[in-house]
């Protein structure tokens, strides 16, 4: 059915290809009771489905064991045990024999019976295991009904994924060799799918309601990630138009790729360090491919969110080490300590229901109240620092005492590791993520106790302008080019440089080619952004003279309003 949908632009790029619709296959259950003589046949059907599912999971297990995901392998191992659990078998057999049900009904009902038992448990982590029981039951049902499930990490051919939503776990495990683009019914520009798609350079559109009803599996789709447009069953004319656009962009990319090994050096001016923002080791190859000189922000939340328990020191260490080694000793990797809060809840860690999660118990506040959590993370970071060039970044700092407390913990961890004879980088640098007005105003005080600053313009802009960018009534007020935000950036750079400290920008503003001239003029030492944005930013900087950058910055700092700032940028 020909259709053009205008949804939310999540990640730039054009994708043209067949849709792979991730739809939960409806399996119809025939509730007609079975005669007793049919019971054996239904039992055989059940055991056959379990064998088939077992073979499939065993294949997944060995694949997972060969890949780097120890975590994933263990999850599959648990599912295999559930699959072969005598209690599961007993339950489903009972539904066939005593309940007079056919195999499909017995599997569905038996699973539901066990799921209900799990949902009644008192331990919240164990309650969540109901999902695992449900998943295994669903798998047996699919094998019994002869229905295939799509495995995202091994796609059959190039396609555009169409789904209701993609969990962080699914997005990270995507078969990137075959995924042309993503489109989901749910999600917004700052949702996990969008952020990851941007850093992988995968065109993506989100917030396309009713999509699953309209999209046909295998039908041709055009995705324009930059405009949020999805075209189902395009005309020949539309296809030609978008193919031409695709070719044009590929050519532009080639020109930019030629800059790969060149520095982001201003004309007659300083070099600015361009780094990538990442959320998982999977993004390291893309970062290197786009010429990242380091990782300016490694968001560690996925380790905590994509898990059913607090990640252990070993698990964290192996992830941080993978990134450290992947980027190499000459490319610094800045790891931000745990930054979760009421809006990014963890299933295994009870967090209070807050009226104002952005002004609430989050990030460094949780870590300092629960030092075991921070200690585990810092130990993992310290141990990983022996394998590359790491830096630590504390989020949401508002006071000096937070920095001192965190540093004290870091020193204790270093001491302990020394006594355990575990190597780490003694020069490990520590920084503050400047994202609160308090940190801006106290920048001079904080600068004396850390090695560098990184300015998180996204949250800084929200707090300074008192705007929730996710609130549709006021989202239009959110703009990091607002003079108040620019003056804040200037104050932080000034305080940092007076104390001889490095200062970078890691918010979205840093990857905006329009804004980088301004940031260069403000004296920022580094910019960190989604990897695909690096080449264009580099091209912009190499074409900029320091004199022009300084003049632009001065004029912007004197601008009375946003309109004036935009006029100044438009003139460049």
């Amino acid at each position, binding site marked *: 059915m020909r259709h053009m949908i205008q949804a939310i632009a999540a990640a730039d790029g054009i994708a043209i290809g067949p849709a792979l619709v991730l739809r939960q296959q409806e399996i119809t259950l025939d509730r007609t009771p079975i005669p007793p003589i049919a019971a054996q046949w239904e039992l055989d059907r059940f055991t056959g489905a379990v064998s088939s599912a077992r073979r499939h999971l065993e294949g997944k297990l060995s694949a997972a064991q060969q890949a780097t995901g120890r975590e994933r392998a263990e999850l599959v191992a*648990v599912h295999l045990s559930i699959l072969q659990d005598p209690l599961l078998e007993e339950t489903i057999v009972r539904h066939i024999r005593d309940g007079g049900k056919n195999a499909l009904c017995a599997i569905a009902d038996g699973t539901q019976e066990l799921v209900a*038992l799990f949902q009644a*448990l*008192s331990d919240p982590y164990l309650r969540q295991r109901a999902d*695992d029981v449900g998943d295994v039951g669903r798998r047996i049902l699919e094998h019994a009904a002869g229905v295939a499930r799509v495995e995202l990490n091994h796609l059959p051919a190039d396609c555009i994924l169409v789904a209701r939503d993609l969990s962080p776990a699914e997005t990270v495990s995507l078969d990137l060799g075959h995924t042309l683009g993503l489109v989901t019914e749910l999600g917004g520009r700052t949702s996990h799918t969008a952020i990851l798609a941007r850093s992988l350079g995968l065109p993506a559109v989100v917030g396309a309601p009713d999509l699953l009803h309209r999209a046909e599996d295998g039908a041709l789709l055009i995705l324009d990630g930059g405009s949020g447009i999805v075209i189902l069953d395009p005309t020949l004319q539309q296809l030609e138009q978008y193919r031409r656009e695709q070719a044009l962009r590929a050519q532009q990319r080639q020109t930019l790729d030629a800059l790969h090994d060149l520095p982001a050096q201003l004309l007659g001016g300083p070099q600015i360090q361009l780094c990538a923002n990442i959320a998982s080791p999977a993004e390291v190859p893309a970062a290197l491919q786009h010429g990242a000189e380091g990782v300016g922000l490694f968001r560690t939340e996925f380790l905590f969110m994509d898990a059913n328990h607090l990640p252990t020191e070993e698990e964290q260490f192996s992830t941080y080490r993978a990134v450290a080694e992947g980027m190499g000793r000459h490319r610094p990797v800045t790891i931000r300590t745990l930054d979760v809060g009421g809006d990014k809840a963890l299933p295994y860690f009870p967090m209070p229901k807050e009226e104002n999660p952005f002004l609430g118990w989050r990030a460094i506040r949780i870590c300092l109240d629960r030092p075991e959590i921070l200690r585990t993370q810092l130990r993992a970071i310290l141990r990983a620092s022996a394998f590359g060039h790491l830096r630590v970044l504390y989020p949401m700092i508002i006071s000096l005492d937070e920095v001192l407390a965190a540093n004290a913990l870091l020193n204790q961890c270093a001491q302990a590791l020394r006594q355990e004879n575990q190597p780490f980088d003694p020069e490990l640098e520590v920084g503050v993520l400047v994202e609160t007005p308090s940190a801006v105003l106290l920048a001079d005080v904080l600068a004396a106790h850390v090695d560098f600053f990184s300015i998180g313009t996204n949250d800084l802009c929200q707090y300074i302008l008192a705007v929730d960018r996710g609130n549709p009534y006021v989202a239009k007020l959110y703009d990091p080019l607002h003079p108040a935000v620019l003056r804040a950036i200037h104050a932080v750079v000034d305080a940092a440089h007076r104390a001889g400290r490095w200062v970078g920008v890691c918010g979205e503003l840093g990857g905006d080619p329009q804004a980088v001239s301004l940031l260069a003029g403000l004296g920022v030492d580094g910019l960190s952004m989604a990897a695909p944005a690096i080449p264009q930013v580099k091209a912009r900087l190499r074409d900029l003279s320091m004199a022009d950058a300084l003049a632009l910055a001065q004029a912007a700092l004197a601008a009375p309003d946003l309109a004036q700032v935009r006029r100044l940028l438009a003139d460049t």
Partner: protein
Amino acid sequence: MVERTVHIADPVGLHARVANGLVQLAQGLPAEITLHAGEKRANAKSILSLLMLDLGQGSQVLLRAEGPDEAAALDAAADYLATARE
């Protein structure tokens, strides 16, 4: 039949990974191993019944082994629970 009360060492209690380890261990032993907590009973070869014991932080459980080589089986299971961690 031999039995012993053991303290589950893992501070989070008996969770999936550790439970799975116990299942693998029990499957290799000839004796029948069961766990008892209050009214509930679990077969050490059944991960679901182990998880449904709902053993959270700081739990104690009665471990029972019955059959060939039961003493050795009890020791193995008890040692495992005393040292395993998520």
